[in-house]
């Protein structure tokens, strides 16, 4: 059959299907809700599955370094085209998004059971997946931005999903204040907070986009890569780096990087499946994806004699700072989802760091692979951890880890899966994906040859210690030790703490198993991605990679098994794991010492603990500067300027006009004789005026 009249190749239909199907699903869901109460859930799962399968059909493209680029006219009068671009980067990302969303949709069937607004929930979830795949598969900035705003909207709608603002749906400790402001957010408030904070980044991104468009005359990624005269022109106006950093601003907002990181913590007011899908596995990765899209483009500009180092330095430093900043806070908080949220932001910081140093090194593909590999492994273990945490919340009925404890016998499956996924996050040596991907990042940073390599490396290593520590702490607090008072109270009331239903534990079980399974084959997996990206970067951007120092240095290690692994990076990452794990074990699993006593024993520990617990005062300061402060100023202006000065001034024209009107009215006597006199006087006046 000939479909050429549609303006695109029928062979690219599956690429379009990946992002269009979830939208179709979103439209069908309200109708399905009429048929049956459970309808929306099953429809959403079905569409997610078909979309994921469509994405899977694209995998051969990535393996053979082929790509599909299909365009249709969008707004012909300005030459805009809509298109999809399935290159290896997009195909890998689309598969991660597609399959993880499918699993989380299945999990949601159980998690959201009995909620009164299932239709709304699944509508926004499906809408989210469609928008996310639109970001991934777009071949131009403008279309990507539509998806970008779509996921933002879905995120807003789902963070505030429980808009009735019940106490149990809040985030933070009731009554706790930082700098005089409540550190306690309701779902509706959190939704607005995240929407507004990410908008700051979105606006930066929009300006960057149009700045480039002004010079290049196109939004298309392929066009921008094939002809780089726009970059030379922008560079001549000193606009290239600013535009690149503005674009990065969008990524900073979406991926909750410093200084726009604070919204992610409050985003945890959403249902846990939302946190797993949007705020851990996919949407927050959109920023990383954007940098991965643009990174090679900017790096390849070196061929045109343009130095983009400043851009990559900003990316690397923002990543490193975020990784460190959020890891410190993850160590002290007691709300399980909040700890995971801190960890998410911190791990994304790692990815940014890797992509940043990629641009600073001679061997671009190493950092690029490391960042993307970490994205994949993080998506798996963090989604699994979130879903498991959701089960815990579901069963225990509290978001605080202090209300859990001793659950390992009561929820054995969740216990095992959480260990597996947790090992991924800790980076347990040789058996978890997290280990290999983190190690790849360490190696990339260490070998980048940038003057910043050493400080970045040290920050990354310290962060790794903290990551292992807080993950061990999380597992220890939830599963080890004695049952908390909360659980004892529940059991006394006859409530039986039990394992979650299979529809819930199977999805996170699969991901936990993958974390370990892929971890064991980790290096081979990494090499595969490395090969894909090497070919992709060479063919699409002309970025050549030589067989660098990495390979030669490590060839002899363990008889070639560890080919491509830097020995120093390896040893640091092993020691980081060891230190973090031992500390965590002492305090929270073995419980040889009481952490509260240690904190209170010493003014220094106490101060640091409070500093971390108060989120480095960042949230409070942002709140004071941009929300509360302006409100006070506005109120002051109203009370002292508007009310006093302006009101007084307003009386002047009012009284003048009223007085004038009274005089005018007084002339109108109604007596014809006086009218005639005035008429006569008028003739004289006209004569006088004419004779002047």
């Amino acid at each position, binding site marked *: 059959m000939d479909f050429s009249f549609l303006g695109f190749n029928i062979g690219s239909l599956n690429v379009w299907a990946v992002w269009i199907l979830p939208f179709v699903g979103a439209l069908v869901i309200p109708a399905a809700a009429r048929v049956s109460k459970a309808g929306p859930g099953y429809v959403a799962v079905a569409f997610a599955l078909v979309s994921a399968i469509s994405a899977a059909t694209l995998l051969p493209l990535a393996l053979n370094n082929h790509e599909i680029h299909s365009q249709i006219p969008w707004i012909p009068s300005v030459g805009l085209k809509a298109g999809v671009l399935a290159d290896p980067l997009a195909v890998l990302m689309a598969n991660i998004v597609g399959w993880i969303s499918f699993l989380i949709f299945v999990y949601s069937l159980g998690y959201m059971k009995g909620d009164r607004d299932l239709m709304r929930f699944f509508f926004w979830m499906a809408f989210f997946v469609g928008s996310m795949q639109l970001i991934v598969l777009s071949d131009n900035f403008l279309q990507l931005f539509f998806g970008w705003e779509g996921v933002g909207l879905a995120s807003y709608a789902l963070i505030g999903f429980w808009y009735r603002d019940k106490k149990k749906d809040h985030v933070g400790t009731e009554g706790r204040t930082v700098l005089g402001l409540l550190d306690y957010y309701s779902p509706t408030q959190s939704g607005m907070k995240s929407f507004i904070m990410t908008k700051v980044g979105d606006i930066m991104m929009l300006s960057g986009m149009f700045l480039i468009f002004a010079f290049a005359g196109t939004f298309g990624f392929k066009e921008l890569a094939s002809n780089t005269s726009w970059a030379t022109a922008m560079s001549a106006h000193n606009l290239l780096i600013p535009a690149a950093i503005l674009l990065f601003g969008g990524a900073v907002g979406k991926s909750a990087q410093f200084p726009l990181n604070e919204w992610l913590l409050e985003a945890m007011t959403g249902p846990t499946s939302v946190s797993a899908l949007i705020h851990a596995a996919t949407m927050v990765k959109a920023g990383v994806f954007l940098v991965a899209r643009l990174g090679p483009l900017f790096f390849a500009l070196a061929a045109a004699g343009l130095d983009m180092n400043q851009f990559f330095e900003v990316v690397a430093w923002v990543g490193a700072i975020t990784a460190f900043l959020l890891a410190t806070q993850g160590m002290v908080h007691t709300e399980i989802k909040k700890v995971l949220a801190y960890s998410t932001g911190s791990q994304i910081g790692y990815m940014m760091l890797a992509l940043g140093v990629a641009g600073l090194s001679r061997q671009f593909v190493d950092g690029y692979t490391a960042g993307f590999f970490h994205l994949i492994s993080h998506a798996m273990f963090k989604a699994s951890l979130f879903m498991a945490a959701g089960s815990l919340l579901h069963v225990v009925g509290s978001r605080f880890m202090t209300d859990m404890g001793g659950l390992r016998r009561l929820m054995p499956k969740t216990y095992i899966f959480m260990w597996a996924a947790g090992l991924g996050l800790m980076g347990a040596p040789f058996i978890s994906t997290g280990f290999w991907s983190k190690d790849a990042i360490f190696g990339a940073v260490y070998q980048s040859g940038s003057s910043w390599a050493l400080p970045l490396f040290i920050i990354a290593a310290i962060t790794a210690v903290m990551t292992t520590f807080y993950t061990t702490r999380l597992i220890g607090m939830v599963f080890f030790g004695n049952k908390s008072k909360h659980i004892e109270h529940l059991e006394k009331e006859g409530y039986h703490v039990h394992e979650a239903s299979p529809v819930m534990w199977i999805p996170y079980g699969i991901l936990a198993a993958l974390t370990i399974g892929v971890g064991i084959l980790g290096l081979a997996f990494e090499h595969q991605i490395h090969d894909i990206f090497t070919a992709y970067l060479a063919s699409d951007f002309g970025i050549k990679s030589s067989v660098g120092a990495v390979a030669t240095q490590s060839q002899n290690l363990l008889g070639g098994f560890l080919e491509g692994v830097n020995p120093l990076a390896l040893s640091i990452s092993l020691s980081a794991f060891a230190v973090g794990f031992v500390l965590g074990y002492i305090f929270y699993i073995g419980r040889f010492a009481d952490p509260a006593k240690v904190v209170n024993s010493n003014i220094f520990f106490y101060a640091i603990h409070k500093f971390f617990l108060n989120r480095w005062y960042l949230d409070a300061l942002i709140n004071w500067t941009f929300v509360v402060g302006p409100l006070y100023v506005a109120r002051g202006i109203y009370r002292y300027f508007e009310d006093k000065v302006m009101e007084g001034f307003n009386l002047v024209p009012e009284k003048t006009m009223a007085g*004038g009107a009274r005089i*005018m*009215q007084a002339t109108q006597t109604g007596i014809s004789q006086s009218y005639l006199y005035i*008429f006569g006087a008028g003739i004289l006046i*006209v*004569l006088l*005026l*004419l004779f*002047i």
Partner: protein
Amino acid sequence: MLDFTSTPIILTLMLGAVGVIIPVISAARKEKGGKLYGGIAFGALVAAIAFVGYQIMTKNVASGALFSKDVLSNDMFGSFFAIAMLIVGIMTTVGSFNYMRGRGNPAVYYSLIVLSTIGMVLVAYSTDLVMLFVAWELMSIPTYVLAGYDKKNPSSNEAAIKYFLFGALSSGIIIWGISIAYGLTGSTNIEQVISGFSHLSPGMLPLAILAVAMFIAGFGFKIGLVPFHMWLPDTYEGAPPPISALLAAGTKKAGFAAALRVIVMGAIALDLNWSFALAIIAIITMTFGNLAAIRQKNISRMLAYSSIGHAGYILIGLSIAPFSALGAAAALFHVLNHAVMKAAAFIAVAGIVATLSITNIDKLAGLAKRMPITSLGLVVSLLALAGVPPLNGFWSKLMLFGAAIDAGHVVSWAPYLAVAGVLNSALSLAYYGWLIRKMYFEEGESEKRVKEPRSIIAVMIFSIIFMVGVGVYPDPFIQFAKSAVPVLTSIPVIH
């Protein structure tokens, strides 16, 4: 030589015949119903407007303003005013259907409207002072009668007597001016008078100036220029509301037609500092009108003062006509717009008075719920009068003020006219906005919807379409106004 294919002559014959026949029919007919006469008048006026349109389409009309030896000239200037006047005539006729129900002598009433309309149309076409005066009287005398049509109502009588008193006075003054002009130049043809004025011996100049002053006073009475406006609020308030529409939207505009032909040309010929004089009168007029309108309680009276304010705006265009090509065109465009806006407002008032007998603004509270369509028409016309975009009044005011700024290249005082105009427009929003708030945002004693007269609804719908349509796509009308402007530099006497 009488040219029987000339537009004004055919119009005179058409409408004159209808105006005379209507009372004859009523004498022959036994039934009392007035609908038939209204229908005839409406048909005749629509036919007349169609005829003018046809003449313009077939290019049987000379562009600009023509000065000929004939008493009437077949030109675009006249045709532009003719269309504006005929629209007002139609709106008044249709708006009267409801008012005339159950009142006596409908045949005479409609006949007088038609006759007055011929007078307005002929004023615009006249090129001879005597012809102009005759047309002027033809326009005025029927309206004296119409203003007092509600003969058992004392305020209607007062309106008529004041109007007549000043009408007689100003007619006398115009005749005086014409006689001086004839004495100085030996002709009553406008072109001859102007060319005669420009060759006067210096000793005769004061007399010529006196003539121009007489014309300003005489025509200024109808236009409502301050200080010749005193009769105007009393008359508009007392007269039947549809007749107020005719006076404010129609006869007033005929005054501008006469002023453009006679005063502007004559004053240019005399090389006077006349435009500065007109500018001062313009500012006084608009400020007075808008200030006085603020404190009015009676809606007709408020609209009367508002029309004084608008006379001031139009006068801006007249006073700067020699300095900016836009000036006269802007004045013409505003004449057309104001004709429709003001007629719509007065017809809306006629509808309100007829159904609810309310004239006090305070009692209009909550009107939007009781008479939604009439209220909407009134609001749109008020916003258009205030010059709110995207309504027609916005564009013509923009042109007027833009022309004033443009004229600043030649005369330094011209931009102040624009400043005064803008300030006055802002000032006028005070009372327009107040009225709108009353109707839409305040609760009235009753919320029961009353039946709105169909004829009033028809007028409202037509005027809303006109005001919004011209506001959205003003270009054809601006072009029409430009094509109708007298080309001042083409007048032979100007050096």
